[in-house]
Each structure stands twice: as structure tokens, then as C-alpha cells.
């Protein structure tokens, strides 16, 4: 699975109005009066703007946990990776998106795909390997009409 990396511009604020009562799937409420707060997705999804980067997911090795080809990934480089985290790793010259699995002995490390068609990758001393960043969210586009 390949990744395209982007630097995140988190400086902008795109405030969307939030209807305080929630969204009614019935008669429209006189909503204007209740629109009081604003949501900024940069603030909701990005805890550390300085260390957050974006990547585009290319491929299907993580499809079983709902990360698909074309998803936008939000990556935070400041988070210390732990067992079970979804990470962007860099191994032998390639970026890859996988789940991290650490053996209990603390010695072996695995990069686990979430798709039966792919094999886990054992990371050994011989590999040139770094965890580039921890994935915090994936954003999926549903509306595909042009």
C-alpha cells in the first residue's frame, strides 16, 4: 500500500455553523436562532497542529478496518507509537500504512495488514525502519457525484 504525503495547512479556520439541537430528520426547525456555536474541524481533529501531516491512502491493505483507497489520513508525528496503533511506517525505502504489533517479549515488531490477502511484515535489525507518524483519523469521501 502506497501513501502520498502532504504537509498540513492547519492555519486556516473554516467555521461551520452547528445547529445546537442536533439534526432533525423531520420538519425543519427555525434553526437560525439556535445556531450559536461554530465548529472548526482543524480544532476537532487536530490536537497538535505543528506536528500534524496529511497523507492519501493508496491501496487496500487496511480495508478490513475501514481504511480504503483514496482516504485522507491525518497523521500526528508527536505521538509515541504503541502496540495496536495504526501507523505510517517507513521500511526499506517505502512508506506503508499498517497496524503495529509488538510481541510480549518486547523484541519483535510486526507490521500488520488488515486484509487477508496481505502478509504481516516482520521488522528485523536488517530493515531500515522508522515509524514516521501515528494515524489519528481517516477521512472518507461519500459524495462522489461530479
Amino acid at each position, binding site marked *: 500500500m502506497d501513501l502520498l504525503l502532504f504537509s498540513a495547512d492547519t492555519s486556516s479556520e473554516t467555521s461551520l455553523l452547528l445547529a445546537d439541537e442536533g439534526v432533525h430528520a423531520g420538519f425543519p426547525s427555525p434553526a437560525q436562532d439556535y445556531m450559536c456555536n461554530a465548529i472548526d474541524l482543524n480544532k476537532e481533529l487536530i490536537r497538535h497542529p505543528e*506536528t500534524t501531516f496529511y497523507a492519501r491512502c493508496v491501496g487496500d491493505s487496511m480495508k478490513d478496518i475501514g481504511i480504503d483507497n483514496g482516504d485522507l489520513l491525518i497523521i500526528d508525528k508527536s505521538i509515541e507509537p504503541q502496540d495496536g496503533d495504526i501507523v505510517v511506517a517507513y521500511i526499506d525505502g517505502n512508506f506503508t500504512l499498517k497496524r503495529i504489533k509488538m510481541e510480549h517479549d518486547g523484541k519483535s515488531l510486526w507490521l500488520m495488514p488488515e486484509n487477508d490477502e496481505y502478509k504481516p511484515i516482520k521488522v528485523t535489525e536488517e530493515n531500515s525502519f522508522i515509524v514516521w507518524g501515528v494515524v489519528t483519523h481517516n477521512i472518507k469521501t461519500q459524495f462522489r457525484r461530479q
Partner: protein
Amino acid sequence: MKSYAICDCDNFFASCERVFAPSLHDKPVVILSNNDGCIIARSSEAKALGIAMGTPLYQIKDFLEKNDVAVFSSNYTLYGDMSRRVMSLLSKYSPVFWQYSIDEMFLDLTGIASGNDLLSYCKSLRKTVTQGTGIPITIGIAPTKTLAKAASKFGKKYKGFKGVCMIDDETKRIKALKMLNVSDVWGIGRRTNKKLDYFGIKTAWDFTQKSEKWIQKEFTVTGLKTWKELQGVDCINVDELPEKKSICTSRSFADQGLADLSQIEEALTNFTAECSRKLRSQHSCCKMLTVFAYTSRFRDDVPQASIYKTIELPVPSNDRQELTGYVMKTLRAEWKAGTYLYKKAGIIVWEMTPDNAIQSDLLDTVDRDKQAALAKTIDAINLKNGQDAVHLAIQGHDKSWFLKCEHKSKQFTTNLKDIIHVK
């Protein structure tokens, strides 16, 4: 005693490229100027290969290929954005900081910690930046900025320091000065260096062994200040020793800070005028321009915001009016709705080229000769009648944002209006 830290990104442009190409972490990397003309930045491996700054690409193309050197065209947007990240993280570590260039920042860490605690504080700061952005930094800590700069030289040179080097006692200070070549001392120019060589002064230590009287006689005021700083006497302000590669002009604002766009505009226009003046005095034009403004990171009770935007000029310039136009456009585009109290703002101009070697742009609509003639005339008027006698209206008159300098004494020695009165 004061504690200053200089935080300096290692081979900044090359490091920015490596964040997105990790396999190059131990490979030689070079960055090319606009239009891929010549080499403007190198990784330490490339320096070790003997590749000189400014070498035209065509002269060493074969050599680069043979030595497996990774070659990048300059990507200023990326460098500007990575700089924003690094500087923003660094500014969280002290309420008092001065950005020195696109990749360097001084922090005043006085009173935050001392001894081993200060060392650990800086180690954790280094880890935060290096892990969080992918950009390795070196930190030099000392009681004066000149000594801090010296410490960072050692931090870069010797791997054992792991990127954090501190000079905090006499033994370390003396040892460092004896090992430091005088030409590597911050603020010692090439001209001064020739003179020092003539007097047989080789190390920073040799320099400090001269008498104050002698230094005063042979060198400028800056030379004397450098001499004092090397002895541990804190006396140099960051803007007294401008970097040659880039010029940064910034200020902290008084009291709560500034909330109005018009106030920040006025302040930034004045900084731009200053940058433009400095550019013209060294006969350079800048290609890149960074505009920044921060709220205080040390106040949880007010909303926080930061602006940090880099733009590339279509044609390198040092013209006040033109630069001001770009700064205003950038500031207004980045301005955030809502009430934020900005405590600090500034301008950095970088990627300098000599003003007689400007590559023009086919689509450039500015009459460059006319512009230069106007700037020269205004400079002449201002030289005669005082700085900013002729200024842009937007620079304002009251300078209310300038209050931070209210404790500054007058310019007793350099401004006729400020000299002392005697009865």
C-alpha cells in the same frame, strides 16, 4: 545569571527534504537555487564531499551522480511551512524568544531551570521538535547569546553532546573558548578576522585575553560587546547582529498585546520598512518573505492563535512599497476572525540575491529602474532628515504598538535629538 538557548535547525533545507524522503537520512543531499542554477544548501554529507556553496550545477553534475548525491530543486513553500512548525513548537518553551532567521531561534530560559534541570529541559525540547517535525535541531545554552552560539557549534561538531551543549561554568567556558577558532565566533566578520589574524589572535580565548582598552581602540563597539559576551557579560541584542542569509525584524507588544488588524498592519509595515532598509544597505533583494504573529503561549485564559505564512515573490525585491504590499496582502489573507491578543509579530526576508543580479520575470509589470530611483531619493531624504521622515501612511505616527520599548533609554550617542542635556 542569564540563560540563553539558541535552537538551530541542522542543515535546514536538506532536513526538510529528508522528512519526506527518510531513506536519505545518511546520504548526501543538495538543494538548487531557482531554475536549478547552483547549489544553495547542503547536508553534512554533501559538505564532507567538498561540494561548495554556489557551485553551478552544470560544473558538478557528473560528480553528483557518481557520488550518489540526492539533488532537489528548492521548495520554499515546504521550507516555510516546516519553519512555521519548528518555530511554533520552540516558542512554547519560553515566554521570551527572538526568531533569528528562518531556521534559528533564541530562547531566554532564565529562571525556568538551571544546571542539570535546564539540560533536561532542552533535551526534551529537542526531542519534541525532532520527533514532531522530523527536523533535527542543535541547542546551545549559555549565560550570553555569543557563548550560546559557541556552545551550539560544539553541539553540532561533537556527536557526544547529542545535540544539546551547555556552557554554564568557568571551566567549560575557558575550555570552549580555547577550542573555538576566533573566526567562528558569532559577530566576528571576515574583515575583523583579517585584523585578528594580523595580531596573531587565533582562538576566541586569545581574543578575550586582550585588554578592554586595546579592544576598544582596535575594534568597533560590536567588537567590544563580543569581547564582553565571551567573558560572560550579557550585552548583545539579537537585532544588533543580523544574519546575512536572512533578516528578521520582530517585536513583542506591550501589555495585553494587539487585537486590531490595523495595529498589526502598522507594526508590520514598520518592520517591513526596516527589513527593506537593511536589504538595501547590503545591496540585496529577497525572494522569500515570511510574516508571523503569535498570541502568548503562556496565558491559558485568552484564546490562542498564530499566523505564520511564507510567500515567494515573483521577482526578488528590496523595495519598501512593494514589500509592504506583499506583507499586507499576506497578513489580510491570514487574518483570523475573532478576538486574539497578539503579543509578538515580525517579518523575515530570506533567499537573498545581490541587487545587481536580479533575474527578471517576463510578466513583471513593475518599472524596476523607476522604483530604484524613487527608493534612492527617499533614502537620501531620510538620511538628512531622520529615519522615516518620509514614510508610508500605513506606518502610522503614534507607534502605540512600540510601547514595549518604553524602558529603553534614549539613543544618547547616535541621535542628535537624544543626546544628554547639560546645564
